[in-house]
């Protein structure tokens, strides 16, 4: 199967035309001045021996050129650094832009590990290409054509003999670069894999230590590390041969000139002067070829990386959303929703309605699809079939920002940022002090925060490692409440909070956020007995929906759950 042609790196550079031209001018200027120095030196000696001119002036000219070359050399460094860093920065910005437009599901599927590589290592490869390869590549190509024309003009027969090696060299490049392109792609894939193993080893650090599984983890890492080395060795073997072969081919060209040109001189078809000139121009031809050879690693790497980045940049944008805004009442309808993962059905034709300003509980065994259902209802995931309607309109009609501004979501797993408590709770930008204070009070966090030496400015460590389970849950609740939501989703919020606190918090929510539509996934029936509706989800299907009294009457599975809880009340529940 043939892979699609990778997108052109030079296409990426189009917006930087000005910089690139400047860079080429600087590069050419610096090397031209570098070449001028020996010439002037030679003419200075001629002047001295011939007693024909002013030696001092020449030495001064030499000094002047040296200084100019120094300045241009520094400017070249400046331009090359700024240009390459700009390309890198802008590419990162574009990537971040593309990622941020994507849905949660797409980002999850692209995998954070791979996106991290895209934003760091892949962008770096392109940066190296710009800073080290672009200018010399372009000027080398010009030099090759120029030198070739010069040679043809000097002596076309000899030139043709020499230029015969050019297709050979081009062929070598083509073959090697073709081979390594795939390898470079693979090695970046290994970086993804290393990222992943490392990240799991860091996030799962406690478990690894408890089970004394360091060796096991190390073996996992070693497999990837070893694979990465093996691919890298394959790349090395390709390139290690390439540069010597290209040098060798150019040497063959020199040898050709020596024998053939020597023959011409001996047979008086060419003068010795012409021959010497031809020889020195040949150096001008060879030099850029070798340069391109040295740049080929950077080229191959950048190509592979840009190919990977393009996949993210060109990922199809999420389906268009409507522009519907305005206040939601909280009336929600889930209409015949199915969600499949591969062949497994997570949710199977789920339908129910939720009234505005009502309270609904979703209960069901582990792996019934409760969390997935709530992800669908909040628009984090899209159903495979079926519809979610808010106030009678499909969720896709609403502008995402309008929807998320009114829907609060307390996640089941701790998802906190390495920011201060204030920044974590007022995570949404629209939160003001009054809302923040109300949210903190509602989540019963006032005392906890007051007891901290730095209060709200205490920094939460990554993954919330510095907070207890219950504290994390309550911080996440405060974060959801701080946006003053019309609709609040709680995913197993009460699992780590004791009953007394839970009851207090729920009473607070009722008092402080009147008119709120509440949808709560929970394991415990007692606190939700008086809810307007309880939905029992089992194996992806709605088994029953109704009030507590109705379910007790009609649903044996519900009764079974209820019975399992008769003796499992929480602290102070009785």
């Amino acid at each position, binding site marked *: 199967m043939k892979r699609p042609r990778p997108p052109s790196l030079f296409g990426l550079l189009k917006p930087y035309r000005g910089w690139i031209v400047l860079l080429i001018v600087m590069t050419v200027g610096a090397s031209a001045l*570098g070449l001028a120095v020996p010439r002037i*030196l030679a003419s200075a000696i001629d002047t*001295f021996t011939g007693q024909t001119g002013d030696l001092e002036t020449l030495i001064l000219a*030499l000094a002047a050129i040296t200084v100019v070359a120094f300045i241009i*050399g*520094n400017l070249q460094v400046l331009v*090359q*650094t700024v240009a390459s860093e700009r390309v*890198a*920065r802008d590419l990162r910005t574009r990537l*971040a832009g593309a*990622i941020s*437009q994507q*849905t*949660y599901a797409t980002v999850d599927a692209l*995998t954070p*590990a791979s996106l*991290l590589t895209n934003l*760091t*290592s892949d962008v*770096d490869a392109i940066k190296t290409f710009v800073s080290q390869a672009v200018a010399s590549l372009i000027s080398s190509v010009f030099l090759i054509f120029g030198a070739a024309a010069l040679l043809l003009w000097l002596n076309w027969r000899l030139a043709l003999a020499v230029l015969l090696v050019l297709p050979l060299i081009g062929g070598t490049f083509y073959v090697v670069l073709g081979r390594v392109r795939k390898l470079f792609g693979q090695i970046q894939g290994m970086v993804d894999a290393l*990222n992943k193993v*490392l990240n*799991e080893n860091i996030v799962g650090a406690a*478990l690894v*230590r*408890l*089970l004394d*599984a*360091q060796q*096991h983890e190390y073996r996992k*890492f070693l497999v990837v*590390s070893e694979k990465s080395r093996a691919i890298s060795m394959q790349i*090395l073997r390709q390139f*290690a041969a390439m540069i*010597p072969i290209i040098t*060798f081919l150019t040497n063959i060209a020199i*040898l050709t000139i020596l024998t053939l040109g*020597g023959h011409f001189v001996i047979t008086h078809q060419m003068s010795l002067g012409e*021959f010497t000139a031809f020889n020195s121009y040949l150096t001008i031809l060879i030099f850029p070829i070798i340069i391109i050879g040295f740049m080929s690693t950077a080229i191959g790497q950048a190509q592979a990386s840009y190919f990977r980045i393009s996949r993210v940049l060109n990922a199809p944008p999420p389906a268009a959303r409507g522009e519907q805004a305005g206040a939601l009442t909280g009336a929600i309808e889930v209409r015949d929703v199915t969600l499949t993962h591969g062949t*497994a059905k997570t949710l199977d034709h789920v339908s129910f309605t939720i009234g505005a300003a009502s309270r609904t509980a979703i209960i069901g065994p*582990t*792996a019934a699809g409760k969390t997935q259902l709530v*992800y669908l209802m909040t628009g*984090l995931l899209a159903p495979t079939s079926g519809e979610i309607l808010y106030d009678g309109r499909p969720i896709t009609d609403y502008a995402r*920002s309008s929807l*998320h*501004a009114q829907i609060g979501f307390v996640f089941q797993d701790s998802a906190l940022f*390495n920011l201060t408590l204030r920044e974590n709770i007022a*995570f949404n930008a629209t939160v003001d002090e009054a809302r923040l204070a109300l949210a903190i009070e509602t989540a019963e966090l006032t005392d*906890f925060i007051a*007891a901290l030496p730095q209060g709200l400015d205490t920094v939460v460590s990554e993954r919330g*490692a510095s907070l207890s*389970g219950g504290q994390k849950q309550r911080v996440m609740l405060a974060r959801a409440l701080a946006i003053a939501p019309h609709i609040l989703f709680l995913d197993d919020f009460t699992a*780590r909070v*004791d009953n007394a*606190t839970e009851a207090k918090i729920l009473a607070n929510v009722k008092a402080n956020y009147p008119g709120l539509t509440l949808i709560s996934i929970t394991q415990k029936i007692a606190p939700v007995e008086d809810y307007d509706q309880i939905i029992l989800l089992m194996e992806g299907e709605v088994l029953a929906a109704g009030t507590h009294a109705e379910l007790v009457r009609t649903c044996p599975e519900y009764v079974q759950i209820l019975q399992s809880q008769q003796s*499992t009340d929480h*602290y*102070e529940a009785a």
Partner: protein
Amino acid sequence: MDYKLSTAAPAGKGRTLLSAARTLAPLLREERSNIAIAVVCVIISSAASLLGPALIARVIDTAIARGDYGLLLRYAGLLAVVYVIALGSSYTQTIRMGTAGRNLLFRLRNQLFTRLSNLPIAFFAQNRAGDLISRVNSDTDKINQFFAQALMQFFGNGFLILGAGILLLTLNWRLGIAALIPALAILGITRAISPWVKRTNRKGLESLGALSGDISESLSNFKVIVAFNRVDYFREKFDLANQRNYRASIAAGISSGVFMPLYTLAGAAASILVLAYGVKLIGGGALTIGVLIGYLLYVTAFYNPLRQLAAVWSSLQMAMAALDRVHEVLGLETDLVAVPDAPAGAPGALLAFDGVSFNYPGGKNVLENVSLILERGKTYALVGPTGGGKTTTAMLMARLYDPGSGAVYLDGRDIRAFTPAERAVKIGFILQEPFLFSGTVRDNIAYGQADMAALTDEELTKRLKASGLADFLDRFSEGLATPVNAGQDTLSLGQKQLVAFLRAVLRQPEILILDEATANIDTVTEQLLEEVLDRLPKATTKVIIAHRLNTIRNADSIFFVGGGALTEAGSMQHAMDMLLSAKRTS
């Protein structure tokens, strides 16, 4: 214990070339033969590249000038041999040095990973995942690049510089000194600015680490970003880090770039000096024009390879900056070392705390002078307000942390006297936040147990059945083979807790700690799990942190954890009273 890695460039000069060599020497020891062969090859290639032009000049002067085509062909043959030797030696050099660099990268990465594995969890609470990943993946590669591409230039060019330098001084010492003055100046300037170059490179790497940290955090919390309308947060935070990285990288790029123009300047300055001085000497009759012309060629032969070294030198500064960051991790030692001869204590108890105090870095004491004794075969419940120290107590029992003062005894010995492997056998701990590794449910159940991993699916199922655990596999769409992807939400939290439960119980530890282990599992399943716990061997000690009343009611003893103390409650009611009063006062 402070495990925070520095994220700001250290003051002063930092690592010297010598100490860098000392750090890398053990890593390179196994590459000795590769490096030695590469050095020989680089000398051969250098010689061949000098010989080629000399031969051509000779051909022109002799064969072509005399019209002797036969001689020309003989020289051409010789030249061809030289070219083939150059081909072989430069190929060998690249392969050998490339191999050495890649092996070094491989070893350095593995070493880093091993070091990370040996550090206690406190380390991970203090350092960001993205930055650590950047150190393992990106910084090590900078070191590899230096070795694979730059190190041999040192040898090759050093060889040429040395030869040309000796010629310069022996041919005419006065001119020689004039020619070498710029080189000496360059040496001084290089020494003076190298620390700055390294520092800016270090800042560049650090800003990349910070960027990586931000990206990694934002991407793993992407659902929060989407649900809270904060795509702009991701963008802003990213743009800020990106912009910082941009500035730091420009500074690094410019500082690394100064060497090349500077060295070029030195070369030109040397030529001018020699020319001016030489002309004066000729005027005084101390020099001939022929010698001066030849001399100028040697000046070029001296400064051209020196210019090549400029590029190598900046690459070295980058590698040294990277090495610093790598070495910071390698240099960390865990404070949770095994202390085989720690005094024994608390005979008879399975687990005991003796005057244990503990605090997290910068925080107040979570536990203060706490003592407790857990007996074999009993069930203990820990209750208390959230944040009161229940989880911390449990972590001390499993030696995820060491107490600040006091001692923890396991089975009559100081817990620090056990090896991690022994501890893993004795202690089972179901963490509050279950974590599964990518793989399958089966991989996670058998995780870290070679004997279990070797079982067939049937054998493993049989084992699960024997412990009454097999039915729980129905909760997974494909049973043991259900795929797990750690970064993604493929399994629910309840399912993860179930796997963690199976994993811990199947090992039949002597003490089983359950930290809200079933909080997200439905109550019907939970009852089944409790039955499993009841069927555990009679000698198993259980420590349960839970909110559900019955588990607490069934406990032999209830401990109230809060306010820095651990108090044994006489009864269920007593525990509840303490909980209520703690709430009122907190």
